[in-house]
């Protein structure tokens, strides 16, 4: 991995105001958990909604979307990507560095609050399961959203459509769509590590792991290919 690119990417991400958008959802998740726990309500009444409905369905994909489209998309938008591309670097080095930063920041930002929620709800094992599931989801989402920032000029919009329409809406109506849902892979991983009644899995573990790999590697390969053909917008002055 190219550490120079990873360093610039991470500093660029932390230096933008957009980074502040990462924190409200984890804070909200923790506040809801503490409030429910403090009120003495049994976890099976609220934990599925908080962990699945809020954590995996909203928090993880939104954080991944902000970070995944930010690591390269922001540089494309402001033109700074040219400084990195005008170097004799194989394009896969650039994409791998961006991917590691995106997946790493997404995983840490989402896994830490989810681990705390898991411990508060059930046990340390459940917390670890949620954290590992966040890591898996972070890898899958980062591959997809990084590729989207090179495939479309509106990666955030397309990413939101995937999360809201495909995963949230169609995933509840058409069960077949769950095979292509990173959200479902996270639930499967959680259930495999800490089986309980709070989280239900709809996809087999081998399929979930394999498909996460497909999203990650496929997204990376697509991004590498698009970056090789990166064109500067056609001003003709």
């Amino acid at each position, binding site marked *: 991995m*190219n550490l*120079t*690119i990873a*360093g*610039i990417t991470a*500093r*660029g991400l932390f*230096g933008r105001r957009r980074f502040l958008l990462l924190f409200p959802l984890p804070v909200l998740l923790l506040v809801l958990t503490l409030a429910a726990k403090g009120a003495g309500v049994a976890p099976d009444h609220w934990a599925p909604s908080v962990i699945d409905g809020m954590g995996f369905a909203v928090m993880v994909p939104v954080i991944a979307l902000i970070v995944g489209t930010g690591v390269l998309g922001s540089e494309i938008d*402001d*033109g*700074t990507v*040219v*400084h*990195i*591309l*005008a*170097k*004799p*670097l*194989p*394009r896969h080095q650039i994409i791998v560095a961006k991917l590691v930063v995106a997946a790493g920041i997404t995983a840490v930002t989402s896994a830490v609050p989810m681990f705390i929620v898991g411990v508060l709800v059930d046990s340390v094992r459940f917390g670890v399961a949620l954290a590992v599931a966040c890591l898996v989801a972070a890898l899958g989402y980062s591959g997809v959203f990084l590729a989207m920032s090179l495939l479309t000029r509106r990666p955030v919009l397309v990413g939101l459509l995937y999360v809201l329409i495909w995963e949230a809406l169609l995933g509840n109506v058409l069960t077949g769509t769950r095979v292509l849902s990173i959200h479902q892979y996270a639930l499967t991983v959680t259930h495999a590590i800490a089986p309980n009644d709070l989280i239900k899995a709809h996809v087999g573990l081998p399929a979930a792991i394999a498909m996460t790999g497909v999203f990650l590697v496929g997204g990376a390969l697509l991004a590498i290919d698009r970056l*090789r*053909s*990166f*064109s*500067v917008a*056609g*001003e*003709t*002055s």
Partner: protein
Amino acid sequence: MKTVELTNVSRWYGNVVAINNVTMTLGSGVTGLLGPNGAGKTTLLHMMSGFLAPSQGELLIGGEPAWRNPGIYRHLGLVSEREAVHGFLTAWEFVLASAKLHKLPQPEQAARRAIELVEMTDAQSRRIETFSKGMRQRTRVAAALVHDPEILLLDEPFNGMDPRQRLHMMELLHQMGSSGRTVLFSSHILEEVEEVSGTVQVIVAGRLAASGDYRTIRRLMTHRPHVFAIRSTDDRRLAVALMHEESVNGLDLDQGGLTVRAGDYGAFTRALPKIALREGLRVRQLIPSDESLESVFAYLITA
């Protein structure tokens, strides 16, 4: 010496032709890329720097295709028109990062040399977002020069620089050109091009309108009379004598002296000393007054 070679290169966007069948070879020395706004200069530079695929034709940098070939950046330095830089980095960090991305054996030393070259040593510890436009531009030039490239492409490099910085940048380009490097810079300010380079590539409406030394280009424009400003010991007598000369198309006489329009540059400049000698006149001043780049450029874009 690394060259930039374009063979029948065209680029179009839908129905709009931005670059139309351009063939040129750039060798060592400084070349100015000239053209009115919208002529296609930036499109051409984007293609040369590997950031745009030609729709047709072949574009080689040091013998290698520019498109989809990051290897060209080992020999190529690029200063693009867009000013965007990573503003959260200091100038030192920015140039050092460039040196590291080029995988130079001694990146710190290379970064130090490049920063000294653009006279940014005193400000190197400041974040780039605090810089003026000219300082940013010099920092970008330092990053482009950090690997000592054999080919340097600059899009409007003097933008935002004050006169002293501009002079320094011109000297730098001169030095690079005279040390055998291939330097191409675009500019819409004719005086800049005239100062830095005699050799120009003129793009008009996507086509290569002229190429070479602009004084030579002017002399080849035989359909346009050459204008000379002449002062002599007796301008009126000289005017009468010149009217008999076949190469003279017309002349004006006023208090400032004679303005002669000659159809044939060579014939007129050979005839003038003989006429002056025959008439017993002394020519005190003979200035080709439309050989400036501005005149050549004006003739080309109105042709």
